[in-house]
């Protein structure tokens, strides 16, 4: 498809430094709940895929848009990036760090899954400049792990975390999920307690989403699996927040907790609806308001990139109002909410002026808190954020 070259884009005012994302769409096996773009591949992932990513990187890096900017973060996500050998991944990272200009203290994250890492592999990544590791633990219960079709065990998760610390990672995130089939409040408490014992700098606690078309969705539909009801979910959410707060973690986004100063800068940029470049299959780029999505099939992606063609399958450029609304709904995921001054500077709009009675009503109902500086969700609105955001989208 034909899209405007990145150079033709006019920058949005008040925009911060962009992030860089690379998508690795391969895993050892497919988890039962997974709706991410990821394909099982054993014994080894295709080496030419990384080459294609590097090739796309060099094309994009040459554009004026990228040339004019310094990147604040690099994030290698998946899938399971660590399904590749340490040397392969480290090679890609070095290449990216060389081609793109980064700020001096850039945050460089790699996502890892427990049964794909060794201390040596992690040390190689660390040596290549990676300073943040995100481990997909999901749960420390073998029973629950197997209930959602994860391929790793509790022991492997523990080993992975220890290896990360041993390899010198001082900024560590653990991904956990709650609302798993058969999960009780006690199960969740146990997983959180184990996690907190490792003193990770960051914790992401997502609720399980039943995505249409996944094996999990089928199991739920056929009644073979029952999920905790929403009262139980609300209970888990509030107890988890309590436990994590007690251990010194601050909830700064609906599903993200961090030690002060250890918030994930890469994700913050998404929630601020900033700009970013995405490389790889199914990756999304957002270049000053122009959003591009690449083809999901990695083989097709490599083919297109190999021929020097843009790998995009979707493009979207929202109007000012739509971008304003989108910035509001993304920003409200953050507990500090959206800054009115920033919205005004970027869009020349204010929530009160734009939404009128819709916002007033939400404020009256105690779901939104609107003061002179910011607008944010109330404590009471966090568990039902989806409902509130649907009024503002």
């Amino acid at each position, binding site marked *: 498809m034909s899209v405007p070259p990145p150079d033709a884009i006019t920058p949005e005012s008040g925009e911060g430094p962009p992030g860089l994302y690379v998508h690795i769409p391969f895993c050892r096996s497919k988890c039962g709940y997974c709706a991410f773009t990821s394909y099982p591949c054993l014994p080894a992932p295709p080496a030419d895929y990384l080459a294609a990513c590097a090739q796309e990187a060099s094309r994009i890096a040459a554009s004026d848009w990228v040339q004019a900017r310094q990147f604040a973060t690099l994030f290698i996500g998946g899938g399971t990036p660590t399904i590749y050998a340490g040397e392969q991944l480290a090679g890609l990272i070095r290449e990216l760090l060389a081609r793109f200009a980064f700020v001096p203290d850039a945050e460089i994250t790699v996502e890892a899954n427990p049964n794909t890492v060794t201390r040596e592999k992690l040390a190689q990544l660390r040596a290549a400049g990676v300073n943040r590791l995100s481990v997909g633990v999901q749960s420390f219960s073998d029973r629950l792990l197997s209930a959602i079709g994860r391929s790793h065990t509790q022991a492997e998760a523990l080993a992975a975390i220890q290896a990360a610390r041993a390899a010198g990672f001082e900024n560590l995130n653990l991904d956990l999920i709650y609302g798993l089939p058969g999960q009780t409040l006690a199960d969740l408490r146990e997983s959180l307690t184990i996690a907190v014992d490792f003193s990770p700098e960051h914790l992401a606690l997502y609720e399980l*989403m039943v995505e249409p078309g996944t094996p999990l969705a089928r199991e739920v539909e056929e009644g073979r699996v029952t999920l905790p009801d929403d009262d139980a979910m609300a209970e888990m959410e509030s107890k988890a927040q309590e436990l994590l707060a007690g251990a010194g973690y601050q909830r700064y986004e609906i599903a993200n907790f961090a030690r002060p100063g250890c918030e994930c800068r890469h994700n913050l940029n998404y929630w601020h609806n900033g700009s970013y470049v995405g490389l790889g299959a199914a990756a999304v780029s957002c270049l000053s308001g122009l959003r591009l999505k690449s083809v999901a099939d990695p083989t097709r992606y490599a083919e297109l990139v190999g021929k020097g063609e843009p790998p995009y399958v979707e493009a979207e450029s929202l109007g000012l109002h739509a971008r304003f609304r989108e910035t509001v709904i*993304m920003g409200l995921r953050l507990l500090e909410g959206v800054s009115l001054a920033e919205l005004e500077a970027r869009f020349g709009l204010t929530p009160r002026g734009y939404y009128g009675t819709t916002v007033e009503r939400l404020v009256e*109902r105690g779901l939104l808190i609107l003061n002179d500086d910011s607008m944010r969700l109330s404590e009471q609105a966090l568990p039902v*954020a*989806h409902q509130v955001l*649907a009024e503002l989208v």
Partner: protein
Amino acid sequence: MVQLKNIRNFSIIAHIDHGKSTLADRLIQLCGMVTDREFQDQLLDNMEIERERGITIKSQTICLPYHAKDGQHYLLNLVDTPGHVDFSYEVSRALASCEGALLLVDAAQGVEAQTLANLYLAMEHDLEIIPVINKIDLPAADPEAIAAQITDDLGLEAEHIQKCSAKTGLGVDAILEAVVNYLPPPKGDPEAPLSALIFDAQYDSFRGTIISCRVFQGRVKAGDTILFLSNNATYRVEEVGFFRLHREPQPELAAGQVGYIIAGIKNISDTRAGDTITLKERPCATPLPGFKEAKQVVFSSIYPVSTDDYEALAAAIEKLTLNDAALTFQKDSSTALGFGFRCGFLGLLHLEVVQERLEREFDLSLILTVPSVNYHVTLNDGTNIEVDNPAYFPDPARIARIEEPFIKATIHMPERYMGGVMTLCMERRGVNTSYHYPLPGRLEFTCELPLAEVIYDFYDRLKSITQGYGSFDYEMLDYRESDLVKLDILVNGDKVDALSQLVHRSGARARGLAACERLKEEIPRQMFKIAIQAAIGGSIVARTNISALRKDVLAKCYGGDISRKRKLLEKQKAGKKRMKTVGNVEIPQSAFLAVLKSEQG
């Protein structure tokens, strides 16, 4: 031009599902009207709802060329009609365009209620009748016994009975010969002043109203100026033609023929089924007899979900009434729902079909209020009023007497379901039950019931009790004295007028409770607690609560796929738009009809 003696106009009539549309398929194929590629089962059932439900809703005319065994060429106008009782008005209008009818009887089921009802309609129109025993391929077929029913019970002559399988095609060619040899050709004088009967119409946004008519005298062609006798409207004819698979223009329509007229008619209310068309230059002396008014028995108000759609709904209803002459409407308004229309229907299936057609053909999203029957109310001062809308139910202190319509229900079923069906009828205030055995093991059960008790889920309940083996028919009986109260529903303390219903005092509390329970199921949990109450006069007779929604799932936005996340929220928002906000509470469309369903439904 085809001579009158070589034209045959006939309908296929029968009880529901006896195979009319399937026989029409075979006749169409025998006449070589469709290629194999164009063919599909029940070819004339071309509306989406007809295909989904597997029943005919609209009568449909098709003009077939037939080369008979006598060596002559004939023009056959075949009308496939619906069998369901709610659409019998379609049948009676179709019959006005015919000289004869094929009366189908299912070889296994035998004569049923609508077999008789449609036979009487055909006799009222003085039609010649050919009885056809269909489905003789079925293992349970008993053509001899059915033939005896036809001669003994229906009083038709044995010599013309045809036996066929519309499914396999066996015996179908003989039917075409019988049509040609036994049914009379139309009479009429092509040279006389034009008189043509409008029996149906349809609105086309490009060409205006397309009139279906039967020409009785004279002729009409493009360029003529036609005159509608009922309102003196005149139009210049643009095109006339026959109904083939599609409309097929012809040089003219002459006495005896059935076809369409297009005359750039954009003013929808000018065209009325039953009106007579003539020529302005040379008008006919008297109008044709026309049609009896259809008698609506079920009433409900239709509102657009979005109040902005009121004008669109008004235009849609007007267009639909062209094609559905049995639908009546007048303006209505509700505090909860804004402006809408009070509509009259011939039955519940008719109501459902109208709702679906409005939603699909005109792309509207609608709310229908609880259906009601028409009550006769005598006030203390002696005045008589009719009430079919709970909103206009007078203050009980002013009411001297109320009467409600009763029906005679006829239920056919295997004997073993007798107990369950009897209980159902008792629950619904049935009286004067009786039964007999038309065939061994098969029971015909009759019962007098208040119409109000069957208009919603009676048929669903009957089906489930009889595991699908029960069939149900009814005829209107009379009005009888009754003790009614108005049951109101309050949502978070606000009365929702569109949910009010008139119910018998004896069952009011139970109805109120059932309505509360149904609403509890239909209204999604919201961010606050919702109280639902049922009240009679000022006093609460039932209540229930919907607890506040405590938790929902917010999708994570992985790798910056913000668009996907936004689209999920937009979908949720669109869903909210299809709900009606009453006070603070969002009530889905479906809730408005659901209140009438019983808990077992």
